[in-house]
């Protein structure tokens, strides 16, 4: 009865309603199918690496698909929240590798959003961005590590409870570093600035790997960063017991065998934390972009001299961009140190800066949504797809598989060419290809795309418009006032 009534009432409008509901159904179907498939594969399968590196990226990009579909705004938010806060954690509890991956993605996404403020909004190429990340990481690391540093000896260690304060301090410290770097170098032109920031990043790395003794007496060394060995035993914030119990209950309810519930809780905690920071970063960046500050950055990026002539305080705006960008990296640095429990200078090398730059380039300079998608693509490529290809090749070698058609026995695939070890090759190629074919990124910011097209002379003015322009010019216009004088 009820269904009948519903049908009769809804019948006249059912056709358009049905059409409007299609994207929603598609989104739901997509997420459900991908999630179900991802659930059903397990590590014992031969082709697990292949399936996992196809299905997991498909799952992670589902929020972007939802954002691109014609769905009611509130429904979009709801769906994405369900994916991010319900489906992903459950999947992560079952296989913590996925949780680790998504946390890494969020860390890099937040940093890329920060770099995007510098590169995408203000147009300042920063090749030493990882230095600010290092500032945050070492700030928390030095004060809580159990290494034999001056902090440890003098007993000035920070209590784990101070994590939240240090998160804030990390933001401040990185922002100040950004201003200190920016003050002298911002007069420089774009490409010089890039090289100087690169040099600055290297200076920070060399400093942290050498500040293991600053005393002139070798018998009483003053150790600050523990040098190249890095800082082990960094702690995270204490978690309230009810959280651990909650996770224990959850795993029990889902029937997941959990051996170390506390570690699992920490993983889940960091996931939620970085997701939150990432969301705040995205929000702040989006608000900035649409604010007078953001417009000033756009103006500086497009024409510095003209912007100055319009009264925009160039140096102050550039410094603000540097400080804003740096502060995101500083916050992520603190979280990274706590999450990894270990930091060493190797985590802050030049390739890391390029990695974050690649995220911004691939995603689309200036586009926040694009940059997050870029973080998904580049991080998954680096941490999952390349590694899984190595695993796949190894497991195929074990069963002595022969590639059909070209008749190539996989056993002959040389050991030296493990895909996981060639990330520079892949990123280098990625950067070149992006620059040549799509310099504005996968999800470009409209304005940036126009700028690039205009600069490269690809701006296409429709022919009709040109003709119209020509037609509106009358012979009288060209002759000036002469006809009038004649008459």
């Amino acid at each position, binding site marked *: 009865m009820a269904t009948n009534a519903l049908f009769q009432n809804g019948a006249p409008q059912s056709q358009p309603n049905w059409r409007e509901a299609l994207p929603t159904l598609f989104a739901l179907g997509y997420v459900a199918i991908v999630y179900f498939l991802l659930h059903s594969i397990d590590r014992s399968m031969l082709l697990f690496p292949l399936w996992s590196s196809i299905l997991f990226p498909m799952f992670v990009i589902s929020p972007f698909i939802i954002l691109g579909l014609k769905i009611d705004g509130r429904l979009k938010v709801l769906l994405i929240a369900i994916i991010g806060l319900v489906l992903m954690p459950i999947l992560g509890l079952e296989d913590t590798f996925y949780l680790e991956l998504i946390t890494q993605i969020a860390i890099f996404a937040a940093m890329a959003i920060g770099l995007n403020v510098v590169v995408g909004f203000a147009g300042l190429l920063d090749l030493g961005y990882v230095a600010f990340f290092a500032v945050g990481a070492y700030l928390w690391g030095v004060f809580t590590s159990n290494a034999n540093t001056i902090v440890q000896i003098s007993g000035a260690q920070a209590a784990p409870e101070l994590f939240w304060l240090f998160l804030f301090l990390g933001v401040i410290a990185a922002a100040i570093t950004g201003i200190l770097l920016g003050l002298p170098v911002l007069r420089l032109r774009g490409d010089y600035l890039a090289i100087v920031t*690169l040099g600055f990043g290297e200076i920070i790395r060399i400093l942290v790997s050498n500040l293991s003794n600053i005393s002139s007496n070798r018998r009483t060394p003053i150790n600050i960063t523990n040098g190249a060995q890095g800082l082990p035993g960094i702690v995270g914030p204490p978690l309230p017991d009810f959280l651990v119990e909650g996770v224990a209950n959850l795993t029990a309810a889902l029937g997941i065998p959990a051996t170390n519930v506390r570690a699992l809780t920490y993983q889940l905690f960091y996931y939620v934390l970085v997701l939150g920071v990432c969301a705040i970063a995205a929000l702040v960046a989006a608000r900035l972009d649409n604010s007078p500050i953001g417009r000033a950055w756009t103006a500086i990026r497009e024409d510095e001299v003209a912007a100055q002539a319009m009264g925009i305080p160039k140096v102050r705006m550039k410094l603000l961009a540097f400080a804003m960008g740096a502060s995101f990296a500083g916050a992520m640095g603190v979280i990274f140190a706590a999450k990894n429990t270990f930091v060493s200078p190797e985590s802050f090398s030049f390739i890391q800066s390029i990695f974050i730059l690649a995220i911004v380039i691939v995603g689309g300079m200036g586009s926040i949504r694009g940059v997050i998608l870029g973080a998904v693509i580049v991080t998954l490529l680096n941490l999952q797809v390349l590694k899984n290809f190595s695993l796949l090749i190894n497991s195929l070698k074990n069963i002595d598989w022969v590639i059909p058609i070209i008749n190539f026995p996989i056993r002959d695939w040389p050991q030296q060419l493990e895909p996981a070890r060639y990330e520079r090759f892949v990123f280098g190629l990625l950067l070149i290809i992006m620059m040549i074919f799509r310099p504005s990124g996968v999800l470009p910011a409209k304005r940036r795309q126009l700028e690039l097209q205009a600069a490269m002379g690809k701006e296409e003015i429709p022919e009709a418009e040109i003709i119209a322009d020509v037609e509106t010019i009358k012979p009288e216009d060209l002759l000036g006032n002469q006809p009038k004088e004649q008459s």
Partner: protein
Amino acid sequence: MTAVPNIASSTQRSPLEALGNWLLQYILRPVLQILLFVFIAGGSISLLALVVGFVLQTDWHGIDILRVPARINLFEQVVRQLPNMLLDGITIGFVYAVIALGYTMVYGVLKFINFAHSEIFMVGGVVGYEVMIRLRAADMLSSLSPLVVIVLMIGVAMVICGTLATVVERVAYKPLRGAPRLVPLISAIGVSFFLTDFVRGFQALNRNVFNMPYPTDQVTFFNERIVLAQGVSTTNTTLIIIVSAIVMLVGLNYFVNATKIGKGIRAVSQDQATASLMGINVNLMITITFMVGGALGGAAGVLYGLKTTNVTPYIGFIPGLKAFTAAVLGGIGNITGAMLGGLLLGMLEAFFSALLPYFPALGLGYSDIFAFAVLILVLLFRPTGLLGKKVDEKV
């Protein structure tokens, strides 16, 4: 009326006189200029070293990190090490100068920092290794004249790296001509990363090696020591590096200043649009610039390999940055400046490598910072470099 006999006399110059003029202008003058630069760079760094040694020998002025252990007399150490320091500085300085030329030439014509040049340099080092290994496999390394070995190594590296640089320009930079400056720079970073791993993969497949030690011990000539003065001696390798670098610098000077192509390159670097109106093939000139710069980078790679006797696919980055710093120091876009900058930077590096170990609070780990510090300081206080001209920003 008086002008006529002058022209007549100049056209009727004897061939010997013409040869003399040519020698004077294209060989003697650049050589003297290079020697002058060596003198300036060496002199200023010696002075710096002596002053630092003198000032810090007993008193550290309350700065603890500058304190030297009491048993060491820093001034005596500086005086004792000075000749070797200078020799070391000249050798590495010439290598930097040759690399810096590649950066500066490309910057001159395209106003673009060729970030991948450091990797072209690295490929040169690897090619030098390959040539030596192949010669050794053919049992020719010890039987051939050492001069032939050197010429072969440098020649092959120049050909391969020149070609490589041309290909890179064609594939990764040419489609981006006219784009905002950052676009080709990012592409160049991509090329640099790509080449690093490409060479690593290639050598892993080819020989299953990562470290590529030059078999210089197989050629006795390389290791023969020459005594320059009492207590100061060096190997023939050092001399080979210095002489080949000077030959290349003089050759480049001739190429740029005396040939028609060189004239074309100079014209393009001054004003691309006008040069093309004058009938100069701008694209060809750019390609030739990349080829010459790449060839020099490759040769520098071989020289660097001879000096350090070990190359890896990752050696390009730091020397590349130092050479870029050298180019900026001398005034980027300025060929003479790159030579001076390279020598100065090499001397500075030798200075820091010689002095840093005496400070317990510092140590050699910091020796790479100086290049970046110099870069930042130059850009802050004299962005046009030592020999560069001031260019106003165009609106």
